[in-house]
């Protein structure tokens, strides 16, 4: 048994398979950042820090005639979203029910996916700085009308090219901005989505949690997500009526090339 303590939960093997599958289906579409950045790992729950390859001097030494330096590392953070499910619903699933109530799991999956996206693009105070915050480029205002997006996205791509950042490029869009893009057709009925894809030569990604949009290169080596324990469901406690579970992951994130992204504000 590992740290998730799944064996202690009053959940059958088929019940666990149902919960894991439901979580995967809810998480995958919402984990927009993972479609655009480099992913390393998973390196396991015991993996605690990312090597930065840097060190700092120590002001003292244990004896005369020597000096010392201390390695700098980036600690992994743990992200957790708790939820509770009715045991009666899980018993019905074991009986073959097809419409099991798993809304709490769905909500937790969405929340943790949004949190991961926000951490990557806008940072996590005290943990790491996000892509949009670190970008040295002047922010571009998207405006209200989606018809103007091609001009602004093309402008962002041009800024990246001027900085020597090659493509292909990806576009992370917040919920509202994504909706506007999908529902908009330009003059002649040409879908805006296709026009933007041609400019970027890369994907347009629904990234709930992103404020506005971010254009970034997909060439690799610029935005580094290091996974310790990848997203998992663990067991917390139970009583006669509910079982309390959680979704959890550990990770670090760092930006190697701040100029490889341009933030577009809502």
């Amino acid at each position: 048994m590992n740290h998730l303590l799944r064996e202690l939960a009053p959940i059958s093997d088929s019940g666990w398979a149902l919960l894991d599958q439901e979580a995967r289906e809810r998480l995958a579409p919402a984990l927009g950042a993972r479609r655009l950045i480099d992913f390393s790992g998973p390196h396991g729950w015991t993996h605690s820090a990312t090597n930065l390859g840097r060190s700092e001097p120590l002001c003292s030494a244990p004896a005369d005639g020597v000096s010392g330096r201390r390695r700098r590392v980036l600690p992994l953070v743990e992200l957790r979203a708790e939820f509770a499910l009715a045991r009666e619903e899980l018993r019905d699933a074991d009986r073959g029910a097809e419409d099991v109530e798993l809304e709490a799991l769905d909500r937790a999956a969405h929340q943790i996916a949004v949190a991961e996206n926000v951490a990557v693009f806008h940072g996590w105070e005290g943990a790491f700085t996000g892509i949009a915050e670190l970008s040295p480029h002047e922010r571009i205002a998207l405006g209200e009308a989606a018809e103007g997006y091609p001009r602004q996205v093309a402008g962002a791509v041009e800024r990246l090219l001027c900085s020597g950042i090659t493509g292909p490029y990806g576009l992370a869009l917040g919920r509202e901005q994504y909706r506007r893009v999908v529902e908009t057709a330009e003059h002649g009925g040409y879908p805006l989505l296709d026009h933007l894809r041609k400019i970027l030569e890369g994907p347009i990604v629904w990234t709930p949690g992103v404020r506005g949009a971010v254009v970034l290169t997909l060439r690799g080596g610029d935005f580094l997500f290091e996974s310790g324990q990848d997203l998992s469901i663990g067991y917390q406690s139970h009583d006669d009526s509910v079982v309390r579970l959680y979704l959890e992951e550990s990770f670090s994130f760092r930006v190697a090339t701040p100029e490889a992204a341009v933030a577009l504000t809502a």
Partner: protein
Amino acid sequence: MGFDQYHEPPNELPAETLTFARLCASLTEEAEAIGWYEQRIAVERDPEALAVMRDAQGEEFKHFSMDLEFLLRRAPAWREIARGILFQSGDIVEHGEEAEAEALEEGSSGAPGITDGSLGIGSLRGAGR
């Protein structure tokens, strides 16, 4: 170029499975190349040719190892078993049996094949929506 690395209709397979299959095919090709160089080196007498082939075989070692590492990252159960076998001294078969038993035991609850208990989502680069 053929597409026979796919055992099932490619249009029915998810993107991550296609990628996994491509790397499995690549791993096989690198292993074959290593074996071929081994045979050539065994019979070659020209020192210059030998040096070239040893260098080329080193490239194949690198390619094979990169393919393997990629696949192990995408298949946690495989990684767990490999961890118990690779770079260990002692009886290889014994290590293999132990690693398999431990991996299967840990994976007996939750999703089959994922021994760390995770959902096995990993990278979504290139995944379709």
